[in-house]
């Protein structure tokens, strides 16, 4: 099959949906002529023109608020917020308007919009451009939160996100943009809410999101060398959360390790642990282990970022702790 990068897969999803549906349009900072600071939207201006993709002022609250308003009037905005850390300045529009407008209108008008944001640590970004913000939004009914880990999923999930009548937060890990993977040329959609068993196994369940899926797979490979068969579940979305896939796996393996890049404490891993401790406690043969960042802002620079972001070795260590 054809291999392309996440960046290209996301761009393909945008292009296909823009071709399919006139109401889809893109706005954000530096996305049109420049093609986005991660070059995701490169080339789309040439194809679709300035009514379908345009640059906005440096005003994230207005970007998301305007996306809500446009969505209410029948458009399908895909807003790019450069860095997920800027959630802080667009938070109200996300949690209090986008998330609640269907409810507040008694089901009359929903806000079918997507907010695409780049998240996650890289060495040169510093603490304001590297956060994994999913748990800031995970307790807000009305939202859908997607975190793809592969080019295939990024494309298929984004297409679903654009088509659903509900607001979707679409978190793209900046270190995954360059990652390559199989992406079929034929049209497909990946339904949001279905986790993906990225590697089957029967000795331990590793639940991961985003960039951590690769690290979990790496850990699973080294564990396999030691005869430990790890099942790696890529959640793909944390809202909805695919409890069934997690529970079925834990029923089989009896052991659970949860991995995310955000700090462990208060992170989304707690939700996964709680679901299992409520619904599958009897299957657990060992304490649940969580792997995530320590309790600190994301540091600057390669050395500290390497120490900060969970590594394959951290995951292997957590798996061993379940044995």
């Amino acid at each position, binding site marked *: 099959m054809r291999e392309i990068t996440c960046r290209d897969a996301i761009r393909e999803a945008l292009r296909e949906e823009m071709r399919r549906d006139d109401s889809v*349009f893109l706005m954000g900072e530096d996305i049109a002529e420049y093609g986005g600071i991660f070059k995701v939207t490169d080339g789309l201006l040439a194809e679709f023109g300035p*009514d379908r993709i345009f640059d*906005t*002022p440096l*005003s994230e*609250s*207005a970007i*998301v*608020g*305007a*996306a*809500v*308003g*446009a*969505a*209410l*009037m*029948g*458009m399908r*905005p895909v807003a790019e917020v450069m860095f997920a850390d800027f959630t802080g300045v667009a938070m*109200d*529009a996300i949690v*209090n*308007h986008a998330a609640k*407008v*269907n*409810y*507040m*209108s*008694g*089901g*009359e*008008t*929903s806000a*079918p919009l997507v907010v695409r944001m780049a998240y996650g640590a890289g060495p040169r970004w510093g603490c304001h451009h590297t956060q994994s913000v999913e748990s800031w939004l995970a307790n807000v*009914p*009305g939202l*859908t939160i997607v975190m793809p880990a592969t080019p295939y999923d990024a494309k298929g999930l984004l297409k*679903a996100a654009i*088509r*659903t*009548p*509900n607001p979707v937060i679409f978190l793209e890990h900046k270190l995954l943009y360059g990652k390559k993977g199989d992406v079929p040329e034929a049209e497909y*959609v990946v*339904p*949001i*809410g*279905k986790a993906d068993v990225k590697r089957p196994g029967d000795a331990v369940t590793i639940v991961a999101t985003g960039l951590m899926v690769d690290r979990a797979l790496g850990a699973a490979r080294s564990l396999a060398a030691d005869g430990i068969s790890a099942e790696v579940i890529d959640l793909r979305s944390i809202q*909805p*959360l*695919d*409890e*069934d896939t997690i529970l079925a796996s834990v029923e089989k393996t009896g052991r659970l390790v949860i991995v995310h890049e955000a700090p462990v404490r208060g992170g989304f891993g707690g939700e996964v642990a709680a679901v299992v401790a409520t619904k599958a406690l009897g299957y657990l043969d060992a304490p649940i282990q969580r792997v995530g960042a320590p309790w600190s802002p994301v540091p600057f620079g390669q050395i500290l970022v390497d120490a900060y972001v969970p590594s394959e070795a951290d995951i292997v260590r957590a798996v061993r702790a379940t044995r």
Partner: protein
Amino acid sequence: MSYADQLTEKDLIQMYRWLVLIRAFEDRVCELWAKAGIMELPHGSQGQEAIAVGACYGLRREDQVLPSLRTRGAFFVKGIPTRVQMAGMFNKRTGAAEGRTSSHHMGDAGRGVLVGSGIIGASITVGVGAALAFRLQRKDHLVVNFFGDGAAQRGDFHEGLNFAGVFKLPVIFVLENNGFAEMTPVSKHFAGPDFACRAEGYGFPGIRLDGNDVLAVYDAVQTAAARARAGEGPTLLECVTYRQRGHCENNPIATCREMSEVEAWRARDPIARMRNDLLQRGIITGEHVATVDAEVGAEIEDAIAFAEESLPPAVDDLCKDVYAAESSELVVGRRS
């Protein structure tokens, strides 16, 4: 000839009737509240009715309004039935969102009322987005964004107006300067000469006008509407008015201010003003005034009866409408 001059007698009478109806509604819900008769805490718009009526009269059905917490009149002129509004105050299933939200931020898609926000100022950017949609759809409809002097200090005011200015969007910003943000007088939260001047920094006109003069508001909004529909961009209208009641019915009218100030403004009441004007011009008679009062009173009592008879919200529907219905090819696994 101004837009206001082109209004027919019928128009004027209709506008007057709206003013009376809104006031009667507001006064009546305040009475009901005082007797613990309703669930929703009224945030009365008494004294500010001319702004909503002047702004919404003459809008198209497709034009969208985003009322603030105190733009009751916009609901009326945009056609939301008195019964529905009253049922909302009673928290009944026949009210806003089947009783799941309070009525002062309710929306009505068909009538061009967008869902507002309890987060003051936040709806400004939403209105701007609706205007953006009209631009992208090449429709010549427009959006009227209502908000207060307090809201004008929120970051969203700034981001919203700048965004609208940059894209020359068809939106009219109606700033109801009623002298207060809750208990804080404008003089304590604002140091500029007026709010209208802020428009310059966004590249469109800003006009300060008498918000108690329904025809002045109508005229200014129609002028701005022509600009907007012609693709010339937004206008900021600072409508100077006064909040005749407390911030909400928890606060006595005299909270943090002198009653003499309230009295002075009551003497400039927009409804009495229009009434006197129409009487003087012979457009209405004393008899007509009484008829309108009676009709309006009956309409409100009917709405109260309707609300009282309506069912309460359904507990079984507690988690309804959190998400719009979606195909399982797109999303699976929603739980409530």
